[in-house]
């Protein structure tokens, strides 16, 4: 498409439909890989890529699906059990609770992280003094590992010796890790804290591609800052925002380390999510079949959400 649009203007027009077709010589038979024909070369270049993708992506997914349909004992695969492992997830209150809490965690984190990133990106895009310093400070959490972040926040919110002084707030002791709802809130906050920098960078990059003339034209037309943002900036950022949302959704659904280190799934199962259950069943209890079933459910959620976002993006483009 791009090549057609940039084709030189003096290119010869195609032959008229009525003109006789030029006589063609005998078509060269494609001899496949190992020849110097364009088709053979194409296959020779593509096959290694396909093989690598198959090995690192398709095979593990197929293996996990197969594993989820079998009984397992430690690392050995046993009898075929059909959907029994999935019944343990969708047929029990515990499993459904994990699904519900995972959705709360992902949607709650997105609801904070995306607007926050957007707002910070706009701030960082302004011509202010020490802009570079602000950028570095805002991006700092990005370099902190999930384990370190979890331990850092555990210390911060500890009501006995944490520097936030949550042991006595007007006579009330606030222990985030002793209440299931507060623990979920803390988990979401810490999750946003470690993930907003990447979203901010992407938003900032997108903002910098928007021509200033468009905003100036809107200003000349009498649009205020809020209207300029809503009607000029935001529509042009939508493709990037969808990418950000897809990336964050995948990251949040699959997150284990932060949850494992910060709350361990507790208290009262209040932060026991699908990803944590997948890890614990697989690598702490060695119920690989059930752990694989959890992983397949997570995979399905990721595909579902990813496809929904893409569909939404396409429909936006078609409007």
């Amino acid at each position, binding site marked *: 498409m791009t090549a057609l649009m940039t084709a030189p203007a003096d290119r010869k027009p195609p032959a008229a439909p009525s003109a006789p077709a030029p006589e063609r010589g005998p078509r060269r038979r494609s001899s496949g890989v190992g020849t110097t024909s364009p088709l053979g070369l194409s296959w020779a270049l593509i096959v290694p890529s396909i093989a690598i993708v198959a090995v690192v992506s398709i095979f593990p997914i197929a293996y996990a699906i197969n594993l989820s349909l079998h009984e397992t004992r*430690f690392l050995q695969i046993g009898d075929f059990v059909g959907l029994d492992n999935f019944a343990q997830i969708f047929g029990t209150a515990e499993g459904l609770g994990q699904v519900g809490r995972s959705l709360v965690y992902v949607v709650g984190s997105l609801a904070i992280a995306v607007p926050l990133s957007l707002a910070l990106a706009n701030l960082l895009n302004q011509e202010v003094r020490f802009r570079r310093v602000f950028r570095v400070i805002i991006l700092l959490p990005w370099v902190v590992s999930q384990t370190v972040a979890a331990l850092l926040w555990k210390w911060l919110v500890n009501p006995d010796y944490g520097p936030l002084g949550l042991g006595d707030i007007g006579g009330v002791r606030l222990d985030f890790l*002793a209440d299931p709802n507060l623990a979920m809130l803390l988990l979401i906050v810490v999750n946003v804290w470690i993930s907003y920098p990447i979203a901010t960078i992407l938003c900032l990059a997108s903002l910098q591609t928007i021509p200033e003339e468009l905003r100036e034209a809107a200003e000349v037309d009498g649009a205020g800052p809020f209207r300029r943002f809503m009607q000029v900036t935001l529509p042009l950022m939508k493709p990037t925002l969808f990418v950000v949302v897809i990336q964050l959704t995948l990251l949040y659904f699959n997150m284990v380390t932060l949850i494992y280190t910060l*709350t361990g799934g*507790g208290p009262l199962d209040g932060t026991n999510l699908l990803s944590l259950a997948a890890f614990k069943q697989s690598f702490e209890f060695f119920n690989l079949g059930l752990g694989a079933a959890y992983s397949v459910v997570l995979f399905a959620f990721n595909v579902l959400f990813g496809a929904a976002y893409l569909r939404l993006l396409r429909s936006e483009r078609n409007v």
Partner: protein
Amino acid sequence: MKHGIIRKVAAVALTAAVGATLAGCASGGGGSAGGEENLDFWIFLDPNSPDDPRGAALKSIVDDYNAQSDGVTVTVRSINYAKIDAEVIKATASGQGPDIINIYSNQLPTHVAAGTIQPMTEYAQPLLDELGDDYLFPIDGATFDGDIMALPWEIRAWLLWYRADLLADAGLEVPQTLDELGTTAAALGAATGTTGLGVGFSNQGLGADFMEKFIPFTWGNGGDVLVNGEPAFASDAGVATMDYFTQLHDEGAFGDEVLSMGADEVINGIKAGTISMAIEGSYRVAAARSGEGIGDNLQTAPIPSDVAGTPLQTPVAGQTLAIGANAEDPAAAWDFIQYYASAVSQEKFAAAGVLPVLASVYDSEAVQTLPNAGELATWRDYVLDYGRPAPVSENFSELSDALVTAGQRVVFQGADAASELDAVAGQFGG
């Protein structure tokens, strides 16, 4: 012709690569080169830890062994205690497991079922026959289907830990009964603003800290936790234990803050002075005392029971060494294990606060001159008089995780103890 040469060269290179890979896989964790033999030893202790004196003892023992052994070098790999079992199972399944593995006795059934270790009866039985009564650990706890699968090198018991300084400040005595434990803890909490009795109700660490109390309390109530590996806790004794935890919570011995505590948090709380009492293992006393300003302020006593002067039975467990399933030279691995469990090594661990498995070590000059010699002897006597092998099961970690969650619901949400215990037992085939 040219293509033929290329194909031959490629085939030779591929064969060499596959051969090298297979050779690498087959060699397992250790290996030998030029007459030198290397043994991989995986353990949860860190030989370079500045805080844990057991790490220094480990380093000294391994260094001494390597210096005196002929052509055998043991290399330590330190792995966090919460991860080591999973790492060993995964590595062994891929043929890369270690030659020597440190396994906590509670986890032995899991490793036997997962096939990560190999029997050592032919090596261990002659040694045990020779040692006779000098060897204190009940070897049945490491015997499966008639085969000795590991050699315990330490004994641990669970004790009442208390901060003597905090008790003195509040003008309170060390509790002598379980009822007093609750009232004293509540009074300590009220007087000092600390958590009177630390019980780790968190899911972190798979609820191990909770289980370390649930087991002796259930025994004290006349019940069992597991019988032949099957759940037996869904009983009147189990319910009475849950009710006792609820009583402790209701009278103020601990608050909701324990929901975020595992064993590490409880011990850190004792060290920081934010927890006054706890029931923790003998093996961590030395490390806790090494904290700034702790020292002799941390004291221990047998766990009280309902009857003053008669302690509760204490679970007996311990760290063991086993020969890895991938070990190519089990005799060499055993040679190190034997050295590790010898009197010389046991004396080094005793200095680090670890209870030796050899009775004679307690009477040795090296141990008798230790500042904690009297305390070690007290703990040994508690183990001998009131010790009982800790219950074990192939899926102990999963059970422990489920039971602590049940405990949270009963104590902090008012759920029915019998129903919760029945549900967990049903989940594990009871």
